[in-house]
Each structure stands twice: as structure tokens, then as C-alpha cells.
């Protein structure tokens, strides 16, 4: 059962989270992904060279370098091979060109124009490999008056309009603990690579895919953009409420800061919920008998439901609602996710042993295929871990050549610059 992207090779120049998440999805599908970093500028998501800062580290911390122990980096870069080479020095370029010549795809997430400044605009990439697929993930796109705008999660969350829609409904735009733009752009980009592979299969042509992270997020607001035109208004945050369904919220349970989410999409789900909470007569009560009335009396409705949820644990409340066919679920903490029975039953987590971070469970393959399944087969690479394999075995350099490159600092495993200094 050969995975879908067996035999496809990707030169992965991405940093942080969006790009690496894209190439992780593809490596899970069997693509050989070669993560290309530099001793002068390794993937900044690895963190500083000399201390723990701003990210998850294994605790207790095993022997190893901090840059090989960053949690999210290890999560997003499993299955990949790791090399280093230095494009700020002339000796780095023949290596890079050799790698590109044997790669089907190159993915990068630099600011617009950076790869071109290193000497590799798309036209040059095509000279090296005529059918190359080049996918770029600049924040705003490669063209346009704002192409130079840079941003991490917060910036893009705001500029894309998502932040304006998020909130309890009575305050300023609210940000999330997660940079939503990253997994969204990454998943979109993985699809873009597949589109280009299909195109190449049909025509023999490669192409340049310019993925604007901004656009991937604005796309998610289609109905709001149409509403603004139809009705001359901008959507406001409505917290946990739904425009037309009620009850639709999280409700406090017996213990402090434990909650259950309940959503009734129609009258029959509300009738079922009313029975579950021991108030079947509320199904026909004029205050709650149809969707419009339930929305009008939402505060009162929620107070009644909360009176019931407060007597139960979140799991009890969810189970009783589900038994009656009502959408409900516990608000999970991260620790709950790690032991969730549904995820466990489906083998959602993959156990990976990393040479400098230890053994842990990581989210596994999301794209589940019956005939050609993907898989997780190796940990994230330490910096430059596969230099010998890739430059020697794959690109055919002699051991002496590789040694010279190491001595000259073009390749290696120990950074010469701390990106976070």
C-alpha cells in the first residue's frame, strides 16, 4: 500500500508554522520532504540556541540542544529530512541547485521577494528544473501595494477581518491563543501543491502558486462579505450565540470552570433537550416553542438550561443530551484531548521518539485513506541531521567534498548565529 505521494520530493524552505504544517501534511502522505535551513538562519520556531524561551520544551529536559527540543517545531517537522546550506555564500548555491534539480516542488514562506533576492525567482527555478512546482506563502501575496506587510498570527488575524468577528459581543476585537492563520494557510497550501501535481500529471507543466495567507483567511468570510453588500452592514461578534439557533452556548457545570456546550438546531432538538432537563412542557411554551421565540427569550432560556447543567459534570450533561439526539459536548482542556476516548479509539496520536526530546504522543495523520494510507515514520530532524544522507547519497557528493563544506561552515549542525539574539 504505497502512500499517495511516494516518489515526490519537496525542498522545504519554510519557517515557523504555516509552511511547515503544509509540508507536514504532505510528508504524512509519503512525500520525501527535505527541510532546508542555514547555520546562519535556522528555522526561528526552534527558538534561541542558549536558553528556553517562549515555547514548549520537554520536561524534564533530556540531553540535547534547545533548538532541537522545541515542541511545536518537532510536531510540525516529523517525517522530514533536515539539511543545512548557506545561500549567503557562493559555495552554497551549487548544492541548492543540485537539490532543486531533483525536487518536484519547492515551498517557501519568506516575505515577498526574498527568494528572488537570493537569486531564485521562478524563472531561474524553471531553468534548473523546467517542470518545477513553486509554492510561496507570503503573508499578503507576492504582488500588490501591501505585499511588503509582514505579520505573524496577530497581525494577519486582524488584517484578514477574522478578529473583528470574534468576541463576546460587548467589547473590542478578541484574539485567540492560537494563530489561526497558520494551520489554515498550511492546510490550504497542501491543497495547492496537490492541485499543481494534478496539473503536472495532465500537462507536464509545473507552475508558480502564490498563496496569500491573507486571502486564505478572507475566503472564510464569504457569507459576511455578501451580507455586507446585501444589507449594508458589518457582522458584529455574537459570542457563543448563533444567528438563529437557541439554546446555543456553553453552560457551567458542577465544578468551577468546567463547561458543557449545547446546541439545538431546530424545534425537535429543543423538545428533546427540554425533556432531558426535566422540563418537557417548555417545548410548547410560547416563550420557547419556535426558533424566533427562543432567540427572543434567549437569556431566560439559558438560565433554565444552566440551572440543570450546574447539577452535573460536563460529561454527564453531554452524554444525557447526546442520548436524546441533541448536539452537546464537554469543553475540553488540552489534557482532556490527550486522553480523549474517541481520539484514542481511532489511533489519532502517533508515538514518536525524538533523539533529543524523548518519546511523546503527537497528532497523527488527519487525511485517512483506506487504500493508500499515510503514516508517521520518523521524528523531526535535528538541525542538519541528514546532510550526509542528502548531499552524499542523494546528490552524489564525495565524503571529502562534504567535509570541506562543513569545515568552511556552509553546512553543519551547530548554528553560527542565534536567530533570537
Amino acid at each position: 500500500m504505497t502512500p499517495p505521494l511516494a516518489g515526490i520530493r519537496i525542498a522545504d524552505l519554510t519557517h515557523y508554522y504555516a509552511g511547515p504544517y503544509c509540508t507536514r501534511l504532505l510528508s504524512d502522505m509519503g512525500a520525501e520532504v527535505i527541510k532546508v535551513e542555514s547555520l546562519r538562519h535556522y528555522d526561528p520556531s526552534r527558538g534561541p540556541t542558549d536558553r528556553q524561551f517562549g515555547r514548549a520544551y520537554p520536561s524534564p529536559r533530556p540531553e540535547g540542544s534547545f533548538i532541537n527540543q522545541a515542541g511545536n517545531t518537532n510536531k510540525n517537522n516529523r517525517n522530514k529530512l533536515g539539511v543545512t546550506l548557506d545561500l549567503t555564500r557562493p559555495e552554497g548555491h551549487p548544492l541548492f541547485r543540485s537539490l532543486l534539480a531533483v525536487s518536484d516542488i519547492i515551498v517557501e514562506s519568506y516575505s515577498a521577494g526574498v527568494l528572488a533576492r537570493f537569486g531564485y525567482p521562478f524563472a531561474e527555478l524553471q531553468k534548473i528544473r523546467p517542470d518545477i512546482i513553486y509554492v510561496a506563502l507570503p503573508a499578503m501575496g507576492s504582488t500588490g501595494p501591501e505585499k511588503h506587510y509582514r505579520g505573524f498570527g496577530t497581525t494577519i488575524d486582524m488584517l484578514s477581518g477574522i478578529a473583528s468577528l470574534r468576541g463576546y459581543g460587548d467589547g473590542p476585537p478578541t484574539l485567540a491563543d492560537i494563530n489561526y492563520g497558520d494551520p489554515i494557510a498550511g492546510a490550504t497550501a497542501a491543497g495547492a501543491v496537490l492541485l499543481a501535481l494534478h496539473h503536472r500529471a495532465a500537462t507536464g507543466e509545473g507552475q508558480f502558486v502564490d498563496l496569500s495567507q491573507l486571502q486564505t483567511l478572507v475566503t472564510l468570510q464569504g457569507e459576511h462579505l455578501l451580507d455586507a453588500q446585501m444589507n449594508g452592514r458589518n457582522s458584529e461578534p455574537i459570542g457563543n450565540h448563533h444567528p438563529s439557533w437557541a439554546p446555543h452556548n456553553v453552560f457551567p457545570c458542577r465544578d468551577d470552570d468546567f463547561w458543557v456546550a449545547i446546541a439545538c438546531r431546530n424545534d425537535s432538538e429543543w423538545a428533546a433537550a427540554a425533556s432531558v432537563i426535566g422540563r418537557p412542557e417548555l417545548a410548547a411554551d410560547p416563550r420557547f416553542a419556535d426558533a424566533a421565540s427562543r432567540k427572543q427569550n434567549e437569556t431566560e432560556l439559558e438560565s433554565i438550561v444552566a440551572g440543570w447543567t450546574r447539577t452535573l459534570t460536563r460529561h454527564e450533561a453531554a452524554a444525557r443530551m447526546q442520548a436524546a439526539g441533541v448536539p452537546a459536548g464537554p469543553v475540553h482542556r488540552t489534557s482532556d484531548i490527550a486522553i480523549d476516548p474517541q481520539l484514542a479509539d481511532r489511533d489519532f496520536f502517533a508515538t514518536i521518539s525524538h533523539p533529543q526530546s524523548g518519546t511523546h504522543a503527537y497528532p497523527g495523520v488527519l487525511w485517512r485513506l483506506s487504500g493508500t494510507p499515510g503514516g508517521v515514520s520518523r521524528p523531526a530532524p535535528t538541525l542538519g541531521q541528514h546532510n550526509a544522507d542528502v548531499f552524499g547519497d542523494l546528490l552524489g557528493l564525495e565524503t571529502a567534498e562534504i567535509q570541506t563544506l562543513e569545515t568552511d561552515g556552509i553546512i553543519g549542525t551547530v548554528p553560527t548565529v542565534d536567530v533570537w539574539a
Partner: protein
Amino acid sequence: MGPHSAGEIETVAIGGLSNSRVLEVGQGIAGSFACRLMAGYGAEVWKVEPPQGDATRDLGPFPADVPNREASASFLFLNAGKRSATIDTSTESGRSALHEFGKQFDAIVVSGMPREVEALGLDALAGSSIVTYVTPFGRTGPYRDWQATELIWEAMGGLMHITGDHEREPLKNPGVQISYIAGYQIYGTTLAALYARLTTGEGQIADISMMECAVHVLENTFMRWQYQAEQRRRGGTFRSPVYPAGDGFVAVVMGLGEERRRSFADMLEEPALLEERFLSRATASQLWDEIDQYLIPWLMDHEKEWIVREAQRRGLLFGAARTSSDLLGNRQLESRGFYHEVDHPVAGALKYPGAPYDASEVPWKPGRAPLLGEHTRQMEQAIDAARSSAAGDGEQA
């Protein structure tokens, strides 16, 4: 771009997904969005609706808030570029028609509760087609028969616990974010399976769990638990970077270096902020209350897009909280041809968001949403033709 009708004959293209025919079955925003993307990048997409129409036809928003099955913004956006045929799959003849029609497709994306979608018998088509199932929790497991909506996926996916204010209830993301993210994942999964088929010649079954799509969004948060048993919770001690500006809100993102802080002082034209204590990384992060004395009035004196322009050109990664109107008029999106004006027989001409990415060899196809059952007759003709042809073969044998 001029108005565009789904009824027009398309010129033949051989690239992108133009070799692929995709059938969308069942109810679910995620599957609908995935299929809309496939249509946009060239696939011929048919949507099977129940006789009363897809649920998003009732979701709105609507012009003047008057419910109208042919003018629901959710439906219009999610189904641009598709054909619509109605089938009553609660009847045996309906399921038989679906089965016969499904054979003519390379991929079938079917969304709903596992029991319901499995009753359609589409597994039988997986020998030659890709059948992608999209269910709330997956086709297997103890929650297989649990009902869910966006709120439930966000709650159980661990996203709500870490979103919102420290002192308040967990907060959901706006709209249907998980469905859209899952849509991008379903698109990738289905294309991966179609790509495998180019080699194997065989179909297969894909199993997408909406809950797993939600959990995939957890980034650092999940690893903080896995690596160091640290539980993240919403709010906490971090200052919100969101400030009011003259005409809305901005996010003030400073960066770490002295150079950036000098640029900041220069932008505010405030020499006091050039004092050493404001420039040094060690001390500056404790001085926000003082910095706010200068920052807050300056922000209120200027408009948000101007602030972002000034900040960005100085390397400060500020953002502005844009509204839908802001986005519709945004020069970056306009210059990239992101919007397409598309006419619709009932909803009229509107500007639709287009391609999430620009593929140099695969132009985006805007299209319009179909009327309910607009192409039912064509479907019936296709089914009849297939049945006659099979009967003819039978006779000859």
C-alpha cells in the same frame, strides 16, 4: 469580470482539475466548501440536494433578512460554480439513482451522520471512485453517533477553553471556522486520493472527522501539554495588544530589538520614548503604562489603515481590525483580482471572494450558485443513458 452563468458551455481546458468530476452529497458546510474549491480550480462539480434543498439555503443571511432559498448568502458563497440536482435519498429509487449517477464521478464527497451516509451504499463505488466521508467524529469510535455543530467541535477540540477572557466563559470563534478549515483538509485529502489513483487506477475511501480537524488547529497549546504538562487557559496575564484607533481598532506588535523601538518613537514623533529605558529590551516591556500615555492619544488621532501603513514601512508588525466593508474595498485584495462580480438570477450581481491562492497555470473559475434542482433533468438524462447503455450491453451479451 463580467457576469457569469453556470449554464454557459465552458471552453475545454486540460489543466487544473478539469479532468475531474466531483459529486457532493449530504449536508455539511465543510464538504460544500471543499467542493466549491474544486469547482473553482476546474472540476465539474454536481451537488445532490434533497427535494427541500440544502440546509444552508435556510441559514442566510438574506437580503433584507427575508428568508429566500435562492438568496441565502451562505449557500450562494459555498456553492458557486456547481450544478444542482435533487434526489430523495430516503426512497429506494432515490438511492438507486444516486448510485447510478455516482458511478460517473471521479470523487464523491459525502457529509452527514455515519449511519445515514452509510445507508446510501456508496462504499460500493470505492473500487473506482474516491469516496470521501465527512462525519462529526469519524466513521468509527465511541462518539460515532454523536451529533455535533461548530460549537461542539470547538468545545471538544480544545479551542474554546483557551479563547476569551480570563474571567468569563470559554469563547467560540466566529461563524464556521472549523468547517472551513476542514474544507481545506477535505480538498487536500480528496486530491491526494485522486493523485494515488493516477498510479493505482483504483478508488478508495477517505474518512475525515470534523473533531480531528479541530484538534489539528491546536498548535503550541497542545505541545505545551505534551512536553511540559502545562495547561493553557484563556486570558491570563498577557496584555492584549488591541487598542482603539480613530476609526476602529489596531494591534500594536512591537518586536524585540532596539531598532524597532527607535522606529516606534520616531513614528510617534515622541523624543521621550528615545530614553534608554524605553529602548532596552530588559526594561521596556515593563513600561507599557507609561508608553500608553503617548500611544493611546496618538492612535486615537489617526485612522487605522494609515497607522498600519506607517508602522509596517518601519518594520513594526501592526495590524488593523478590518470589517467586511474594509475588506471589500481593500486595495491589496482588489489589486490581486481577488474579487469577482457574479450575477445570480435571484440574488443579483454581487462581489464574491475568489481564489485563496493564485496558481499561474490554473485560472480561478468564479461561477454562480445553482437554483434548487436546476440540473435535475440533465442528471436524469445521464442516468437514463447509462442504464440504457448497460441494458444494451446486457442484451448483446
